[in-house]
């Protein structure tokens, strides 16, 4: 655990070859391309475009449609902010799921930000090499997408048929119920194999199981968001952007904070 002590003292023995600036530039670059290829799925915007198209097609004198109302940006923003927050505290179901999501984000963030340090402190690997250990998580995630991406719809159809065609939001939950077990088993596997400094593929296998469970848990809130889009989209957006930036700035932040504490 020498390396952990070093970080605690505010200095790393092996400096990260990619500083924060590089990471920020990279994430900005990716974000740019994502926005370029992202499909517009915001229902009101789509409807507005559709209405505009119809309005243009018929001559103005015969048009039964009212002219478009002016969109006030502050109103849209307030609506987008207030409504999800209200539902979060009014609906106990959403609030409970939010609590679960909170803990999920806690442990996944702890894991993500420490894998590199953990491997460097237990095994004789360099910083760039520890990046390869994330492949374990990635491959596990791929398995999860391959299995639950395909079976998710089937599960819902099956449950729907069983309850006489009634569709409920909690029909989206079964993959999560499987996923968090895998994640827990994977965490124990990973932790103890690192502790005993086992042959390196063994903790990476643990990471594979964690990755499988993690993505299975994560796909689910997205699906629930489809069922109740207004409640979850904002939190998903917040969560993803916040956690990404926390990941990027984490080592520096950690050093700063620990320096101030001492």
């Amino acid at each position: 655990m020498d390396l952990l002590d070093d970080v605690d003292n505010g200095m790393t023995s092996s400096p990260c070859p990619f500083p924060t600036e590089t990471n920020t530039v990279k994430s900005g670059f990716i974000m740019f391309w994502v926005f370029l290829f992202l499909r517009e799925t915001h229902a009101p915007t789509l409807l507005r475009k559709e209405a505009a198209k119809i309005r243009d097609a018929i001559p103005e004198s015969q048009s039964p449609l009212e002219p478009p109302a002016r969109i006030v940006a502050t109103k849209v923003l307030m609506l987008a902010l207030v409504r999800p927050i209200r539902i979060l505290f009014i609906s106990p179901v959403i609030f409970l799921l939010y609590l679960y999501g909170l803990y999920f984000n806690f442990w996944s963030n702890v894991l993500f930000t420490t894998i590199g340090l953990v491997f460097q402190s237990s095994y004789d690997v360099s910083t760039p090499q520890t990046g390869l250990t994330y492949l374990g998580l990635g491959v596990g995630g791929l398995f999860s997408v391959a299995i639950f991406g395909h079976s998710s719809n089937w599960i819902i159809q099956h449950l729907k048929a069983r309850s006489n065609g009634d569709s409920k939001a909690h029909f989206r939950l079964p993959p999560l119920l499987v996923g968090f077990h895998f994640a827990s088993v994977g965490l124990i596997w990973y932790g103890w194999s690192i502790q005993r400094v086992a042959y390196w593929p063994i903790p990476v296998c643990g990471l594979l199981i964690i990755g499988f469970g993690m993505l299975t848990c994560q796909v689910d809130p997205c699906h629930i968001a489809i069922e109740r889009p207004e409640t979850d989209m904002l939190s998903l957006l917040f969560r993803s952007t916040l956690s990404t930036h926390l990941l990027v700035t984490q080592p520096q932040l950690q050093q700063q904070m620990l320096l101030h504490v001492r």
Partner: protein
Amino acid sequence: MAGLAGIPLYRGIGYGWGNTLMALLNIVCGLIPITLYLRGDALQELIQRS
């Protein structure tokens, strides 16, 4: 900020127990979606009645 807890956690009780603690808490928190799945309908009714 969650990531900040990682290093003190691992330093305190080691990798094995640190990760086991996270896994056990994960199972405890997993009771929430299990309850929602099994008793989701009853909960919804309870809320609507009150």
